[in-house]
């Protein structure tokens, strides 16, 4: 029998199991395997391999689910406790931002007046104004960074446990 026919049969055997084949292809394959013991054996072996994969079982470590449920509940409690703090932080940021926006023109004049009175160069009091404006955002960013680094430390158990 032509080697191309075997190659086509092999390809269809795999395709049938991976994504399916058309009716015409199935009929062709079936007719081919009827006359070709090698391809029929290949199909049988492929099916047996896949069946073995499906039926093979792995023993679960004892108490895996209950230990995981316990850990998940602890973490959920931790997240619930952290929620009001986080909400308060966002609220403080929002209030601070609104206050900053509304008071900006007055504060600008205040910095300008103070700078002129003390004799500071323009750049210095402008820089002071910039800092005053960015301090709440920097504070919030610092708190969030601290939180995420703490979370990172908690996740280190995976690499330590391996």
């Amino acid at each position, binding site marked *: 029998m032509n080697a191309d026919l075997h190659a086509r049969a092999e390809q269809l055997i*795999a*395709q049938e*199991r*991976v*994504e399916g084949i058309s009716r015409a292809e199935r009929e062709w394959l079936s007719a081919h395997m009827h006359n070709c013991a090698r391809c029929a054996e290949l199909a049988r*072996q*492929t099916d*047996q*391999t*896949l069946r*073995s*994969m*499906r*039926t*093979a*079982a*792995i*023993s*679960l*470590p004892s108490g*895996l*689910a209950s*230990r*995981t*449920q316990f*850990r*998940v*509940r602890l*973490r*959920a409690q931790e*997240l*619930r406790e952290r929620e009001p703090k986080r909400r308060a932080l966002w609220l403080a940021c929002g209030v601070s931002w609104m206050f900053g926006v509304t008071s900006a023109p007055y504060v600008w004049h205040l910095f300008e007046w103070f700078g002129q009175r003390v004799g500071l160069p323009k750049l210095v009091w402008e820089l002071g104004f910039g800092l005053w404006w960015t301090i709440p955002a920097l504070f919030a960013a610092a708190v969030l960074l601290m939180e995420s680094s703490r979370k990172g430390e908690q*996740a280190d*158990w*995976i*690499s330590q*446990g*391996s």
Partner: protein
Amino acid sequence: MSDEAKTIARGLQKRDPDLLDRLIEQYQYRLFRYLVYITGNKERAEDFFQETWIRVLERGHQYDGKSKFEGWLFAIARHLVIDWQRSKNPQSLDTLTDPEQEHPLQLVNESESSPLQQVLSQETEENVQSSLGRIPAIYREVLVLRFQEELQIEEMAGVLSIPVSTVKSRLYRGLESLRGALQGGAA
């Protein structure tokens, strides 16, 4: 969107502890088996199993219920393994598999057949399992997802974040590798 997926999405949004308990029970076997196959190590799989569910709790709001929950769950587990892999050794997923530790997987035969059939199929299963351990992890992973977890090719593409065509080509190559490994093992 199925009712089940919708219910899960709503429960995860609220971080419903009872729902999480039920999901852990329901998916424990499939998730653990998947992790054992992609890490090749039961202890490590156990660590990742717990960490996956912690992530499900923390990122539950990101599950929209439009796809099957198991696809999303496997994707989380897979990303955790890859992140860990990268932190350890910035190479492919394949390096996760330590051949010395991988083979003694504690597999038991669940089939309900005659004692003779059990012996014969157990022998085949052992061959298949050891052959699976010998093929590259990227192929082992797609074979496990398709033929053990019975995910659709499109769902697999979602889990693996790769195009459908790549999933298919990995499946074909995986089947070929597995067949080759089986023949090599039998020889």
